[in-house]
């Protein structure tokens, strides 16, 4: 096992506590270190790892090819500034040796040696950050960002920079209500999971931070599995089944999602950090191999279908449960 690989395994947020998985409103307070059998995760909100520069280069490339991945309805500009001014100090605290934030009132200077960034801007002055605060934030953190406005007793997904979506599209969802965004998810409507989650989020008070995990599977280390690029990755889900390299190509994709009530704008900042671990890497931890094999085998068909696992599920279970 290489050092890089073991670091990836050690930091991986393995999401399954039991041998079966159902949707739930699985939120917990943020910044709680969580121990796994291989290591741990979750002491902060933002997460910078060895893939930082590579993933941000990939985000730049995705955005250059398709600028619609960054969406902001006009009334969300305050929320975008709010997200930037909330999270840059967090990033500076996380990376004290390589990033520096100087604040002189509203005049902020940001230096990031990891990317060679040096920028000075004035908080609230759109001209001082021509690409916009949301796009600039997205150039500095590995997380995808969605900003939800709260009004008329509902949350609205009115801005976002999402380049690493797992089979959805920010450009399609922008302007939708929270309940509409989650319309296609099976089971959660009958069980009240989504309305409960929305009620919970709408009651978050300024500065409160929670998190949850979600998961699916992806063929290859493909962060950009958004609806827009389906033509590039959709067929791999069929082709991987007969590929001898299946355990190296099939990845468990875990999203660590943070939910933060931004102070100034009252928006909810939804951060999505995507972690990919191949079945072969996962199998270096025997408990994870057994548990994920059991979860995949037990998963009801409608959930497997929604997650896009149907084509390769049996092959994955076979490999995971083979002795």
């Amino acid at each position, binding site marked *: 096992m290489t050092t890089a690989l073991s670091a990836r395994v050690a930091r991986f947020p393995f999401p399954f506590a039991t041998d079966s998985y159902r949707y739930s409103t699985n939120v917990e307070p943020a910044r709680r270190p969580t121990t796994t059998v291989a290591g741990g995760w979750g002491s902060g909100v933002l997460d910078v790892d060895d893939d930082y520069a590579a993933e941000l280069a990939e985000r730049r490339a995705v955005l250059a090819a398709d600028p619609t991945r960054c969406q902001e309805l006009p009334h969300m500009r305050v929320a975008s500034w709010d997200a930037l001014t*909330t999270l840059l100090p967090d990033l500076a605290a996380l990376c004290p040796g390589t990033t520096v934030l100087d604040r002189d009132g509203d005049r902020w200077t940001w230096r990031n040696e990891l990317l060679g960034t040096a920028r000075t801007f004035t908080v*609230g002055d759109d001209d001082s950050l021509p690409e916009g605060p949301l796009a600039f934030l997205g150039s500095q953190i590995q997380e995808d960002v969605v900003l939800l406005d709260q*009004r008329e007793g509902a949350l609205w997904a009115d801005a976002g920079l999402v380049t690493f979506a797992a089979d959805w599209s920010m450009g399609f969802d922008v302007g939708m209500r929270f309940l509409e965004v989650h319309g296609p998810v099976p089971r959660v409507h009958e069980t009240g999971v989504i309305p409960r989650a929305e009620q919970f989020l709408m*009651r978050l008070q*300024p*500065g409160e931070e929670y998190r949850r995990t979600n998961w699916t599977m992806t063929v290859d280390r493909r962060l950009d599995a958004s609806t827009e690029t389906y033509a590039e990755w959709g067929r791999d889900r069929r082709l991987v089944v007969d590929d001898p390299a299946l355990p190296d190509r099939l990845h468990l994709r875990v999203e660590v999602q943070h939910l933060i009530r931004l*102070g*100034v704008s009252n928006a909810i900042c939804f951060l999505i950090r995507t972690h990919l671990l191949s079945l072969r890497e996962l199998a270096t931890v025997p408990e994870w191999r057994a548990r994920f094999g059991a979860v995949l085998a037990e998963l009801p068909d409608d959930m497997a279908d929604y997650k896009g696992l149907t084509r390769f599920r049996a092959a994955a279970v076979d490999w995971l449960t083979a002795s």
Partner: protein
Amino acid sequence: MTATLTAPDALRADDGRLVLEVAGVVDEVPGVRTLALRRPGGGLLPAHPAGSHVVLDCGDRRNAYSLTGDGSAADEYRVSVLLCPGGGGGSAFVHRLAVGDVVTASRPRSAFAPVSTARHHLLIAGGIGITPMLSHARAAVRWKRSFELLYGHRPGAGAYLDELRGLCGDRLAAHGSTAEMLAAVRAALADQPLGTHVYVCGPAPLIAFVEETAAELGWPGERVHAERFSAADLDPGEPFTARLARSGTRVPVPSGTSLLVALERAGVAVPNLCRQGVCGECRVPVRSGRPLHRDLYLSETERAAGDSVMCCVSRSVDDELELDL
């Protein structure tokens, strides 16, 4: 804005309360005292939306006071408190505080934030109700939102008048007589661009006037926002009995005691935060009996369903209310 809350028997210890030192005391106008509050060691305080409040520990009570800043993270909060000699003692406590005193307060809580999609914000303040509106006006200036402020005050008793004139310019209209103020409110409500939201804070009659006039002029209800001096305005209510369905216990709720306090005294723990019918935390399921809803949280549909009650402020129409506890 001030809401006086009866001190609960057991305060939550884990709600991350702020420890603040009085760094300045200014009397804006006779009877209105402004406190500048800072962290004892210095440092930034949490940011908040315009119109937020903190709940300050005032001796044996907790009072909610509006924060008057624009909400950006800063090293100081300011609250302005009107001395109410006949009140519950919270304002007198605040008026006794001196520079160097240390107080505890909740983190900022938001229940009166500006609506981001509004094309124009009409702010209406009466008396000490100016405090959340000062926050709204400051945030509107900082974020370049279109707004205007109508401020009714007693002659010579307009807190923050000079500062507001500098901040708002001709977007401020201040009125020293009630008749003038109400005429100005009516005129303003009658002539606004589509997409305007109106926000009002002040005495109950002013809020009622704004709501009734807006309704009469055809304003959609969701574009009218009011910050009430909620719990302080509520009457003590009729006594009733809460019957706890699971244990069979009967808990008497005397006039002047909230259902929440009665439950707590009976040893029943109910999650709660604001204790003024705003936050939604203390919702309790109802099995039978008709709740007398006095909260600002439940929707009309939820009220009509009659199957839950916000026990911090609401009571019972019937002599007995059966709770699923």
